[in-house]
């Protein structure tokens, strides 16, 4: 590069790259180092190098494993419900009806509100709304305060996350459906394919790129869930809904075990990267060329 070009290159790229390095790259590198250190977060206290001890500690941490199980169970349930609902919505609103646009707007709305606030809205519904419904309808087996039952509190979390994310996946599925040429579906119709056949033999295969994105988004979103978790259940009852992200946060800032918490955080990164990349590779393979 000529000297003048170098100057312009630096002027254009360096401000952002320096900020990015300070905020993402350096913390990541230091974060890896912290995971080999024992420290309580108090600046004047010593940081002791302990090698892999923190990682060994995690393997004896029953609560971390149970948070892993909750996260896994939550993620699988959420993956299915978010995408089924999002896909159903997208099919309902892509037929040129005048009210479709309004419905789209409504279905997407919760996504804009923000996880923390969604959690609080539903907290009221699950505690008082459900109690009221149970008393009115007599269906107290279904409508009771879900947030005090370990099992149902997890389902409550799935419902709120689904409410938040379904509209988001709907938007992506709509984009995919609109990309399918009408002639293809018309031709199949002429050939006598019924609605179900057209859906499963034409629409779904051609929607594979949308599936890749939506599954990726829901998977990583569900794995990293924190604010809905915090406001809806705060991990309770008795840690039964404590997810990965919350467990890491509590380990570091709650109990002041900075090293162990950071080791968990590094492990968390590896798991998220591994799971999401595997999913993308698998679904990418299933994509067909038009």
């Amino acid at each position, binding site marked *: 590069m000529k000297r003048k070009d170098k100057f312009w290159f630096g002027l254009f790229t360096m401000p952002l790259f320096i900020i990015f390095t300070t905020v993402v790259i350096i913390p990541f590198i230091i974060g890896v180092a912290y995971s080999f250190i024992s420290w309580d977060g108090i600046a004047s206290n010593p940081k002791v190098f302990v090698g892999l001890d923190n990682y060994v500690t995690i393997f004896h941490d029953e609560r971390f494993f149970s948070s892993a199980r909750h996260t896994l169970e939550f993620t699988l349930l959420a993956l299915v419900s978010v995408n089924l609902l999002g896909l159903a919505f997208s099919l309902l609103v892509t037929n040129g009806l005048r009210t479709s646009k309004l419905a789209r707007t409504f279905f997407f709305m919760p996504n804009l509100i923000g996880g923390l606030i969604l959690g*609080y809205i539903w907290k009221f519904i699950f505690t008082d709304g459900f109690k009221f419904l149970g008393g009115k309808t007599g269906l107290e087996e279904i409508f009771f305060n879900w947030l005090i039952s370990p099992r149902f509190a997890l389902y409550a979390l799935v419902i709120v996350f689904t409410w938040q994310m379904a509209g988001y996946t709907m938007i992506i599925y709509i984009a995919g459906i609109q990309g399918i040429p009408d002639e293809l579906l018309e031709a199949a119709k002429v050939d006598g394919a019924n609605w179900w056949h057209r859906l499963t033999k034409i629409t779904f295969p051609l929607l594979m790129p949308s599936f890749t994105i939506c599954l990726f988004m829901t998977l990583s979103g569900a794995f990293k869930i924190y604010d809905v978790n915090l406001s809806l259940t705060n991990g309770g009852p008795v840690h039964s809904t404590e997810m990965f992200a919350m467990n890491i946060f509590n380990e570091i800032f709650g109990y002041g075990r900075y090293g162990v918490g950071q080791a968990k955080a590094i492990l968390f990164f590896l798991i998220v990267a591994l799971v999401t990349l595997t999913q993308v590779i698998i679904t990418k393979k299933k994509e067909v060329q038009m």
Partner: protein
Amino acid sequence: MRRTSRAIYSILLVVLALIFLSPIYIMIVNSFKTRAELYNNALALPESFSLQYFEAAMKKMNFLTVLGNSAFVTVGTVVFVVILSSMTAWMLVRTDNKLSKFMFMAFISTMLIPFQTLMMPLMQVMDWIRTHLHIPMLNTHGGLIFMNIGFHASIAVFLYHGFIKSVPIALEEAATLDGCSKFGVFWRIVFPMLKTITITVAILDVISTWNDYLLPSLVLSDKGLRTIQLSTFYFFGEFTIVWNQAMAGLTLTIIPVVIFYAIAQKYIIKGIAEGAVK
């Protein structure tokens, strides 16, 4: 479909969408009710429309201040992300060398890192900058905006990069021949052509900044600096929940979002689709 069945389908669709939004209905109706009325029937319309709970919630949440704080942080973040990442992405596309490839890879490959992996060391770095370089990164809106820019850089550079690759270079070359500096070429010729992707980047950033809770909760400790999300959290944390007042508080927090959605609806939906598909 025939006309009548289309009409029925249309109506059913709206009904379904309204049922989907019923939690918002429940929130709003209960924000007007007295305690007794709320526990008597959580689903019914309120008998009296009293604004007293809104007033109380507004005071407790310090609503106007936190609204201003959120707006300041969001606008600051979006403006800087748009300016810096469009400039960076353009340079990275237009220079073909090892450094630009390395920088692009650095932006992209870090996208998978969850915030939880970075939060503790990030706070250490910011603390170090505060004590050694005397730049107040913690407990300032400026510091929060700085960190937001860093976290939003990856996706913004990625989106701009993809878009700029399809922008023809001829106009830029012509302008350069006419004696325009790189700065002039970018701001006068290139940036106006990036309008659609700029809207996408801005929309995505507005939503994620406005709704962010975790980073502000770590960075801001002064009560006067709180954003809407923080204020909502403390509103629910500090008192035993008085639900009617709480619902009034939540309704208040949703009003700005609804207004934003109503105004920018078309762009939001388009922005989300583009941001995800790219």
